[in-house]
């Protein structure tokens, strides 16, 4: 991914031409949307808890530097070692250092989007360390040698048949059975041996509580508990925005996250970790490390409008409701975070030179904004990033990367035309008389007509028609 800039348009065209993929996504997203809607049938409850959760996230952002210091202080008091990483390279170096000190050969991982952002698995493998994803969806994706296509359901792009074939190819003694229960049990057998043998367990963090120095993780499978309980060392990775002020701030977030994500009232496990094994305790890791990653987040935080991106609790509901995501699938984005949140987060982290296309892959239908449990104004930020992409010297990395002289001249002309009644009359008259004769292959116009029919200009302008109707003052 660090090679050529991803070509979102080409990847989308390929995805659109794949009926199997589109069918897999359509079915999954329809199911997720209706299950979520059932959870929020009581609109009064939804409105109230949503406002509370948004206030929890905003309060955390309003005190972000202080809360991170308090988190560090309380984690340290609890025996958790806190590390700070400005870049993904720093975070990978910290992880490798801990692994080397622990003489680790085998790592088991629970789900962590931050480590996807870091491409940690590739770094570990290059270092000769075996790393195994243990969330079933992540395990499938890892066996397949691809990336997650959804932040909550990583293997949503595959159907049972495809997964059965994959397991048959990759797992010793696997039978060729297209049966989710059989396949799940097969993964259980493979991974239980790994949990038992692993030297280090890794996880993400859903919320870190400053007040108590507690790391909260939610999950259904028990792999997160395995990774954070059984191996002698646990390393947790979090983006610096994941902190909340008080322990009481956790219930509102936990109330909305699983309901928004998968339409379940709560995940099977809510796991709250406040330190390594204490004197006298019989299990739990001997060491717990927390790696706090910036990777562009402090830059996002600097802009009062873009800052709202950092409210996100990573439920993935915006993906499930996005008409673009549902049609092109997660892989077309070629990014750790796809869908609406990805379209505003990834360009800010990786820059508009590489990711300038992403904010344009949006119809601005506002569905994501309506269901976002923490009320992120995704569409407004999307619009802002479109502007930043053509405005050099702005707040976002590689701002102005997509600026074009022709485009900027056309818009200046457009502005001038609309500011002068005479120019406007002349221009609209010219368009109504000559517009239909203009070939659709004209530069700039071509961008539009490539994928759309060229509009037909009306023979008479709106002003002309209004005047004929006797509307005064036009």
């Amino acid at each position, binding site marked *: 991914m660090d090679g050529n800039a991803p070509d979102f348009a080409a990847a989308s065209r390929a995805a659109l031409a794949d009926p199997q993929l589109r069918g897999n996504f359509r079915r999954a997203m329809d199911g997720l949307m209706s299950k979520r809607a059932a959870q929020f049938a009581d609109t009064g409850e939804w409105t109230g808890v949503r406002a509370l959760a948004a206030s929890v996230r905003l309060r955390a952002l309003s005190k972000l530097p202080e809360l991170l210091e308090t988190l560090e202080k309380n984690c340290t008091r609890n025996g958790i070692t806190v590390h700070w990483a400005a870049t993904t390279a720093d975070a990978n170096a910290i992880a490798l250092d801990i692994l080397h000190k622990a003489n680790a050969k085998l790592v088991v991982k629970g789900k962590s989007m931050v480590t996807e952002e870091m491409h940690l698995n590739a770094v570990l493998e290059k270092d000769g360390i075996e790393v195994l994803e243990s969330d079933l969806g992540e395990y499938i994706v890892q066996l397949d040698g691809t990336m997650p296509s959804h932040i909550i359901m990583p293997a949503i792009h595959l159907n049972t048949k495809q997964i059965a074939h994959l397991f048959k190819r990759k797992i010793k003694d696997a039978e060729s059975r297209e049966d989710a229960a059989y396949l799940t049990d097969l993964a259980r057998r493979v991974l239980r041996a790994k949990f038992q043998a692993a030297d280090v367990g890794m996880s993400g963090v859903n919320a870190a509580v400053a007040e108590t120095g507690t790391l909260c993780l939610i999950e259904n499978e028990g*792999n997160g*508990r395995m990774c954070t309980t059984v191996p002698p060392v646990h390393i947790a990775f979090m983006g610096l925005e994941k902190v909340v002020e008080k322990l009481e701030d956790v219930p509102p977030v936990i109330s909305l996250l699983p309901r928004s994500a998968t339409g379940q009232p709560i995940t099977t496990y809510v796991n709250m970790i406040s330190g390594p094994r204490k004197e006298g305790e019989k299990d739990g890791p001997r060491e717990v490390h927390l790696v706090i990653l910036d990777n562009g987040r402090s830059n996002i935080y600097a802009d009062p409008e873009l800052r709202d991106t950092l409210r996100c609790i990573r439920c993935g509901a915006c993906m499930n409701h996005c008409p673009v995501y549902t049609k092109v699938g997660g892989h077309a984005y070629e990014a750790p975070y796809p869908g609406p949140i990805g379209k505003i987060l990834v360009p800010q982290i990786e820059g508009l030179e590489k990711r300038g296309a992403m904010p344009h892959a949006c119809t601005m239908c506002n569905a994501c904004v309506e269901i976002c449990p923490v009320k992120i104004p995704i569409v407004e930020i999307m619009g802002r990033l479109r502007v930043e992409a053509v405005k050099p010297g702005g707040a976002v990395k590689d701002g102005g990367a997509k600026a074009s002289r022709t485009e900027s001249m056309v818009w200046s002309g457009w502005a001038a035309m609309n500011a002068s009644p005479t120019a406007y009359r002349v221009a609209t008259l010219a368009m109504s008389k000559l517009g239909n004769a203009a070939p659709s292959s004209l530069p700039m116009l071509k961008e539009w007509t490539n994928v759309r029919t060229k509009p037909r200009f009306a023979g008479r302008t709106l002003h002309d028609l209004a005047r004929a109707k006797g509307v005064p003052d036009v």
Partner: protein
Amino acid sequence: MSDARNSILSRLRASRDAHPLTPPASDFAPIEAKSWAEEERLPRIRRLMEAVHTEFLDAREADWPAVLREFLAHEGVASLAYAPETEAGKRLVEGWDPASTSLIPYDRPLENLKPQLFETIEAGLTTTRGAIAETGSLILWPTAEEPRTLSLVPHIHIALLRADALYDTFLQAMRMQGWAQEMPTNVLLVSGPSKTADIEQTLAYGVHGPKRLVVLVVHP
């Protein structure tokens, strides 16, 4: 990496001071308003948890070890790990007939019990600190006496739930029990046996954690 720490924190502080943010007040009333009559709590917990394949047994203070023994014998469970130093552990062993199920005390560090726990022990017994009506969740509070893996590694997790320790919400339980003052190494909410829907949205139980969760309700 303290350079990274200081530069991150000073950047954040400068940005925040340049553009301070006034958050709206956090009104917890929408969560505080959720409540169920005392006699509705247990049926609700049961309904929500049974919907995700949790099993329930009813017993009295006097006979819960016998109810458990009978259940394990009926299910053909040959071994049960338990916490010997807890009150519940002491009750359990009193007069236990090991004919059908042998009791294995979790009395040493995980390192010395790992192969047994992963490969042979079939069930684990833990206590709970109550349950939550809103979501149908057990509160597990592992301690030095009652380790975390007891409810995680064996294929069957049996959880003792006192019928008088029921809360409306997660928030209420954490406030009434004063969690913020005394967070232990690990606290858990458990709302069913391990499950996944990662293969084409098909729900499958018992992926990594326990395949079965049995709640043994002890009525006063």
